């Protein structure tokens, strides 16, 4: 990260004011077009000011009323996007980004029921993913088979989402000794609606759901943690996403290491040629679905509030790269 403004790079913008670090930001960060940028197709025409004071709520209001303070607000929640008023000044813009919303099973305790793949699969069978997407996230997303969206690098064209089968789910939950249980979900408040919709699905198979905010200390015996994650890589999703959930150095894993996953990852690292490399990525996708390694939900859109005066080009990587963004006219 860059600790001071300066003409440090070759990129499309020059950092002329402010800093943005992991733990702090200046009140504003300013980037001006680089007049010597080598890529004429990406040469910016506007100055970018990141306003780090006004906040998301006020920024969204600003776009809606068109007071000129803010042009683009990143990372709206589904509820914020749904609540955006009809406006002649701005709109909600969506992007089918390389992102997932998924549930991580808590397998930390040796006696965790979620160490049993059949139990994990049973919970997956109980989920009507389209219902969860529509009810919990206002339809802002796409149901996908596992972690990779259909059509993307590594997506297996024959893979389908785990089916919604409440009858099979109920039988499998019974077999796993989970009938009638309360399932504790830890999630960001932004995804409470999703947990509520998941709870409605679970009620149909005799379970109940309890939401615990991820802002609080989660109880040690929670069952599932809902995680949003994104892929910024040049066609190497397993290292960025799958590894982060299941790899031996994963930060999101809630359980023991998985030697079978690690072996697949090692295989990928040593498969440089195509199409063999993409074949291994598909193998990883099939493995995590076959083993029901996660509670698969959907791929959420990234959501933005955008002023009508701006032609905003969103990135599938979820990053705020802005070289192509223009002022209309």
């Amino acid at each position, binding site marked *: 990260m860059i600790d001071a403004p300066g003409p440090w790079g070759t990129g499309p913008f020059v950092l002329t004011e402010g800093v943005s670090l*992991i733990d702090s930001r200046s009140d504003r960060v300013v980037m001006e077009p680089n007049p010597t940028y080598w890529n004429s197709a990406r040469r910016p025409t506007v*100055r970018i000011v990141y306003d780090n004071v006004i906040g998301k709520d006020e920024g969204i209001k600003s776009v809606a009323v068109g007071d000129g303070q803010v042009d683009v607000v990143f990372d709206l929640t589904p509820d914020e996007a749904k609540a955006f008023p009809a406006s002649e000044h701005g709109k909600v813009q969506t992007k089918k980004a390389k992102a997932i919303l998924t549930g991580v099973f808590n397998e930390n305790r040796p006696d965790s029921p979620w160490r049993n793949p059949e139990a994990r699969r049973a919970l997956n069978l109980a989920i009507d993913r389209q219902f969860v997407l529509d009810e919990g996230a206002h339809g802002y997303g796409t149901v996908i088979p596992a972690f990779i969206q259909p059509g993307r690098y590594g997506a297996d064209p024959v893979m389908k989402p785990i089916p919604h089968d409440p009858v099979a789910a109920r039988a499998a939950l019974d077999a796993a000794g989970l009938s009638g249980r309360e399932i504790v979900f830890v999630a960001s408040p932004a995804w409470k609606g999703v947990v509520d919709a998941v709870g409605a699905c679970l009620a149909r198979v005799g379970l109940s759901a309890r939401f615990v905010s991820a802002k609080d200390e989660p109880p040690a015996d929670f069952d599932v943690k809902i995680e949003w994650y994104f892929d910024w890589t040049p066609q190497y999703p397993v290292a960025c996403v799958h590894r982060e959930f299941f790899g031996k150095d994963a930060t999101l894993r809630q359980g023991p290491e998985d030697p079978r996953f690690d072996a697949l990852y090692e295989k990928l690292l040593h498969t440089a040629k195509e199409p063999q490399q993409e074949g291994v990525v598909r193998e990883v996708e099939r493995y995590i679905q076959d083993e029901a390694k996660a509670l698969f939900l959907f791929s959420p859109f990234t959501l933005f509030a955008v002023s009508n005066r701006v032609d905003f080009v969103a990135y599938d990587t979820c990053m705020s790269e802005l070289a192509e963004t223009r002022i209309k006219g």
Partner: protein
Amino acid sequence: MDAQATGDPGGGQPWGPHNTVTVVDPSPVNWLSITWNTMEEANRVDHDGIGQPSLAESWRWLDGETLELKMRDAVYQDGEPFNASMFKLGFDKVQEWTNPHPPGAFLNFARDVTCEAVDDRTVRMRFPGGDSAALMKLRGMHLPSTRFWNEWGFVDPKTGSAEGHW
């Protein structure tokens, strides 16, 4: 937002509301967006999520362990020319640290990876045993100017270390 003109974009009209886009980005990785908007790497990912050449205009595997990259003719914002030696400098700098990348060690090059500037435009990287993640790792290897390396070098002024601060 400051609506006042604050500068002169290369001899053109001054900056003001008419040519300024004001953004609110609460993302925890905004720091990386700032880097990717202002610095570059060998390759990048476009708005459709597809890998593209950037400061390397092309690359090819000569064998299972040797990646050859052809560098682009580009100039730093401070006027310094970019060339293969600047790529090698960036590689040498990142290799000085154990775990420089905030996202994690999966972006590290192995300790036995080597990099050679063959000529002004050509770089050869050798990955003993192969590494199919090489291009992903290059996306995280920023290539700033000599002045940046001399003045900052991704070293956190609070800690004096670049670990986790790349």
